[in-house]
């Protein structure tokens, strides 16, 4: 019987060694192209971030792919508005102090510098619906160009709290999670393909001392509220930015669900209703003009951020083919705008 035991042990050891890795699979070479990125804002000074694309196996740093010697121009209606030139900018500056021996310190500084291309001459501020085009060229990375229409400020026809819309989710021990619904009626501009995002600041009074305070919705880095596509109350569970694909150029009501503070890990110090009273909600509406591929990617990233650390985030989503709007290169020339509307709590 001992021989059988030996055989079984041998086989189990073989099995336990079965996961094996092999490195250096042949991989296709990538030809780098110019990458142009910017978000232009109505009334703002245009800028352009110019870098190059890189192969998936290339070890890069941020600065190693930034292109500083490209020729960049901004055009509008067939007229060159200005040449652009690279300008270095300090992004971060960290000083490290290390005690090498008692009383002897070593200092070193880690500096992150990046930069963008800015106009070399004064130009008129960009106006809503201006159609402008960036043209860039580089001897090694070729020519690239992209145009964008300056996003107008979102036209909000109305914001209203939906009457009797507070949803209460009951938990054991009497705790409740409260949500309410806002109807945000937007008049979508037809000239651009854009998407919307919302955040809200809930203003409240605390009873003690009548001191005014504010609270924000969920976590600061997550703007997404729960959004439904239609005003009929059917929740599709869509989170994150919402595309105007289905209502391009039309007036449309988007229902936004807001989670009210006071429960379950979220602003719990406000749990006792008699301690505070909501008095208004500032609804921030953001609008970004970008291709649908970019929209998909942004939404995926938002989901990832929202669920970071949750088991489900480990399961990859379907790959997103990000479609930029730069001809001859990569990147996104987008435009952005937003505004705030206040709605008073009855």
């Amino acid at each position, binding site marked *: 019987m001992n021989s059988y035991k030996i055989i079984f042990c041998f086989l189990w050891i073989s099995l336990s060694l079965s996961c094996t890795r*092999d490195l250096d699979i042949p991989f296709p070479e990538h030809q780098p192209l110019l990458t142009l990125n910017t978000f232009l*804002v109505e009334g703002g000074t245009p*800028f352009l971030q110019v870098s190059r694309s890189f192969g998936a196996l290339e*070890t890069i740093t941020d600065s190693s792919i930034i292109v500083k010697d490209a020729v960049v121009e901004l055009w509008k209606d067939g007229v060159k508005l200005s040449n652009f030139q690279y300008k270095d900018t300090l*992004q971060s500056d960290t000083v490290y102090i290390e005690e090498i021996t008692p009383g002897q310190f070593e200092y070193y500084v880690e500096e992150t510098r990046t930069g963008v291309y800015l106009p070399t001459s004064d130009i008129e501020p960009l106006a809503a619906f201006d159609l402008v085009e960036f043209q860039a060229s580089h001897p090694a990375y070729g020519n690239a160009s992209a145009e964008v229409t300056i996003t107008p400020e979102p036209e909000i026809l109305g914001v209203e709290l939906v009457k009797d819309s507070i949803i209460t989710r009951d*938990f054991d021990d009497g*705790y409740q999670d409260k949500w309410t619904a806002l109807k945000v009626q937007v008049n979508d501009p037809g000239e651009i393909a854009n998407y919307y995002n919302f955040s809200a600041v809930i203003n409240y009074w605390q009873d003690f001392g009548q001191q005014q305070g504010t609270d924000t919705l969920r976590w600061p880095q997550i703007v997404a509220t729960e959004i439904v596509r239609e005003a009929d109350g059917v929740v599709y569970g869509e989170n994150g930015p919402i595309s105007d694909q289905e209502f391009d150029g039309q007036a449309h009501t988007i229902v936004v669900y807001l989670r009210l503070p006071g429960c379950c890990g979220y602003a719990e110090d406000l749990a006792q209703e008699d301690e505070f009273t909501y008095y208004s909600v500032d609804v921030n509406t953001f609008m970004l003009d970008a291709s649908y591929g970019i929209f998909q990617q942004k939404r995926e*990233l938002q989901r990832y951020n929202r669920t970071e650390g949750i088991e489900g985030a480990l*399961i990859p989503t379907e790959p997103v083919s990000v479609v*930029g709007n730069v001809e001859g290169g990569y990147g996104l020339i987008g435009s952005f705008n937003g505004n705030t509307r206040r709605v008073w709590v009855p």
Partner: protein
Amino acid sequence: MKHTNWKVSVFPTQILLLSFFFISELQAQKFTISGYLTDAANGEKLLNAAVFDAKTEQGTLTNLYGFYSLTLPADSVDLVFSYGGFSTQNIRFVLDRDTTLSVSLDYLALDEVEIIAEEVERKVDQTQMSTVEIPIEQIKRLPALLGEVDVIKALQYMPGVQSGNEGSSGLYVRGGGPDQNLILLDGVPLYYVSHLGGFFSVFNADALSSVQLYKGGFPARYGERLSSILDIRMKEGNLNKFEGEGSIGLISAKLSIQGPIQKGKTAFILSGRRTYIDLLSRPLSRAATDGEGSVGYFFYDLNGKINHIISDKDRLYFSFYMGDDKFGGKSTYEDDLGGESYDEEFNIGLGWGNRLAALRWNHLWSDQLFSNLTATFTRYQLRTDADGKSVTRTSDSTFTDEFALDYRSQIRDFGLKLDFDFYPSPNHEIKFGAFSTNHRFEPSTVGISSRTQETRQDTTLTSKIDYTWESGVYLEDNLKIGRRFSANLGIRATHYQINDQSSWAIQARTAARYQLTDDVSLKGSYSQMTQFIHLLTNNGVGLPIDLWVPATERVPSQDSWQVAGGVSASLWKDRYEFSLEGYYKEMNGLITFKEGNNFFFGGATEGTWEETVETGGTGESYGLELLLQKKQGKTTGWLGYTLSWNWRQFDNIELGRRFPYKYDRRHDISLVVSHRLNDRISLAGTWVFGTGNAITLPTAGYGALEDPLIPDSFNFFGGREGQSFASRGNSFAYQLLTDISYGGGGVELFENGRNGFRMQAYHRMDLGIEFTKAKKWGQRTWALGVYNAYSRLNPYVYYFENNIESFDASGNPVFKKNLTKLALFPIIPSISYRFKF
């Protein structure tokens, strides 16, 4: 408001042809011979056994219940009853009345017969094309991973049938997805047929009697899936004596017993299998973690069947299957920091399994009319749970924190089916019937709870539960015109209902054969299929977290049509069979997750799975399949080759461009050889080669600016009423995000498109040897095997990895990014002990 949609695409001549051929037989005086063919040793029915009248050269095959009916002119007859591996019986008599004749054939020991394959009817004689049958005994002889005999993996050696990844027991037939296979166990669908993440299938070969796969040219009696029908039948139980068989292998043990409850009248079979990985892994993992954690996994299957002969005309069967996979892990942690102690416990569980039951009643209405009424139940459930508890104790207080997560996904069917086999003449075998199935879909239910002394939260998120009905009728005629031409014409109509929506699908089925010579025939087929069920599956996820969902108004049904043609030949006195088939298949109404969605994101777990999918996809698949098979002699086996192309297209994926399906495989070769050295020793070997799987891999990337909707400064917009962004000035951060790892902010570039990157080719050789010896109590076999004999590191998954390439002058590591492959199985030996008594 009720909506009814019609999906009708049928050859206009189909119904006319059926009617014409049905009434065209003008009968002279004829009588019918009918009965059952059984195995003399155990009373087991012989399926697809041949009954042939040598005088008129007319013949038929037994049906799935061993019944045959042959109507011949009144005259003397010379009947030959035959079945592979069994003695042939000749019976001569004068046919002057309707006659019932049940025949039992004797099984021949191996030294008496060189025919290994059970199939007697040559491919060249069959009307049907695109079918695969592998005898269970032959499947048992093939070398297998860890010695676990696997029906599904044996089928993967056949042309037109692909496995998914390494070791997978998934089926991908002629470009179809895994949801497009109807897998029937005793006529009841099974929804998930894998154990251990797909390395083994749920089918215990000891409990099975036959396996038949249809890749195309589907008979009208089958439907509800687009790409294949796998019809697996369980043994019925020995009516004459008790017997058993079993095995002990590296990871599992099996035992099957069968015998009469009432001799010659009622029999049973009970077959079980259980793995014992957990018995080893739990103590080992506990020891490895100093008692702080343990993991365990096991699966089991239990098959059973009772077969009762009520009378010559009535038989009753009850069969069931239950099987589960159970994974569990536990970890504990204790810490004592002076006056404060901390205890933590975490448990995780994952389980999935099927339950299946079927009650069948065979009834013989006349010598020519046989019926089978089946009531079925099937359920597949996936469940995963996790819970944890931590307790912090100080001298004056105790703080407890608990959480629990529970996830469940389920599909359940109740069905009723009535099938008739009608044999009006040797030139017509007519099958018709009706069916109805009620499906209950519960794609997902998630329960989350957490509690401390101060707070408590319980949330249940349930996706919408859908009930659907699938009902219909079918008619098919297997007809012969002259000696050389035969055809199977059929039509199937299915009515589908979900809520107040309903639709019809009418599907035409045609298969025809023309025999050029006695040994060569040409074949062709055309079939339409409709499927009212979808599977939501993420590419690359190896866990059984696929969701079965119904066709709805928003996500309509899928349908396909397939045309195939080929030549079949019997060579060298039937020692070899050769077939070459070409096929073209189109699929419509396919679904896939939207870009950026998966099982957890986008609503699949929030009751809104319809929002997560792209609909209206199309698929196109075409190719050539070659099979050269040796079915007789001491050496048997086959060589299969498939050349195929397989595409998908969705309007919102890849800008609407078509892209290769994940399992698009240009070349696929299988070589299977078994050789019997003598009565005691037999050898077997297999070799497979396949073009590498198509995967989506970023080959480049570029930097992006931070999304202006994400940075903190814009979340806290904090503007005043009516204030616009422009009026607040321009203050973007210029930081370029370049990390293209998931969530890194950079943008991945898929230069070759979806599934545009090829993994390395797959090839592998398995070898096996068996030593069999007769014992006083029965027979024992030692089976030794080697999986992946030359230890080819076949890719399972690719991923990017940073490795230290060198060190700079300061001693800091310099990293190099590599694409790394993970290979699961190098050479793996196996041993198992089988016994029969």
